[in-house]
């Protein structure tokens, strides 16, 4: 971490017991910690406790944090430890291995093959009918409570490993390398999981937002 970055200044201030620095950090990261904790524990209440325990771990470990990794990577490592510790007590926790499970090698089409002209056809592999336009952009839909819930539900239907990757990449905005390091995936596996997850969410949005042709 760069010694002159804003985050590093917050860390230094927090070490000095600056409450405003702590308030700024929880404002910025607490909701993300809960979201990431849910990947492990599924249950919102337990995730909130894990996020809270993560901050206690931050305070206890702040003097030892040297800034070699980014702040969010460090937060994630504390959170993953808390979630694992929780897993020893509760059966509902998803094992870390399920989040880091590599995708199968077999090719799985992400768009229903029936949407394309069959092999042997003059237009084999081309869309059978025009792709429907969306009446409402999902970026607009997500601004409403209902739309937000629909997208959240779409993510909840994904297998744990796809859900973990799409949450970190597209919701939290991590780059591919950070996700690989956090979950112990190769770049290729990470990309395959992201690809399947995005396509599934798009398919679900199409069912909600698609209009027939246009």
């Amino acid at each position, binding site marked *: 971490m760069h010694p002159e970055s804003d985050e590093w200044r917050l860390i230094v201030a927090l070490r000095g017991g600056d409450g405003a620095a702590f308030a700024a950090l929880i404002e910025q990261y607490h909701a993300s910690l809960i979201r990431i904790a849910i990947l492990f524990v599924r249950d919102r209440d337990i995730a909130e406790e894990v996020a809270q325990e993560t901050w206690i771990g931050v305070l206890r470990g702040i003097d030892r944090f040297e800034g070699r990794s980014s702040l969010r990577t460090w937060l994630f490592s504390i959170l993953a430890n808390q979630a694992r510790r929780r897993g020893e007590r509760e059966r509902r926790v998803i094992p870390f291995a399920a989040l880091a499970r590599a995708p199968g090698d077999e090719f799985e089409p992400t768009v229903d093959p029936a949407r394309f002209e069959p092999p042997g056809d003059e237009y084999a*592999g081309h869309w059978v009918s025009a*792709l429907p336009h969306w009446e409402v952009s999902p970026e607009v839909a997500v601004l409403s409570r209902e739309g937000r819930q629909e997208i959240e539900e779409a993510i909840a239907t994904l297998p744990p490993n796809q859900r973990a990757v799409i949450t970190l990449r597209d919701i939290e905005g991590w780059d591919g390398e950070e996700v690989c390091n956090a979950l112990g995936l190769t770049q290729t596996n990470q990309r395959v999981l992201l690809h399947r997850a995005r396509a599934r969410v798009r398919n679900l949005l199409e069912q909600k937002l698609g209009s027939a042709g246009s």
Partner: protein
Amino acid sequence: MADPGDLTCQEFVELVTSYLDGSLSLVERARFEAHLTNCDDCPLYLAQIQQTVRALGHLREEAIASVARASLLAEFRDWKRAQGSISAS
């Protein structure tokens, strides 16, 4: 209909994530972009994936609940008090 190149739409949709991540080889990228220029439907598919990604990014905009904030700030005060008593002793 213009010739959409040697890539089919069915192949195109499976390359979208690699394209957006910048991980296609130069040759694959050229085929992908040739298809994108010439196909009537695939630009919309790519746009919908990009809209999906941006919509997901909006989910992050979630504020901390005031109960959680209060409870964390209380934890902080406890921690600070404990620290003070360590350095004072």
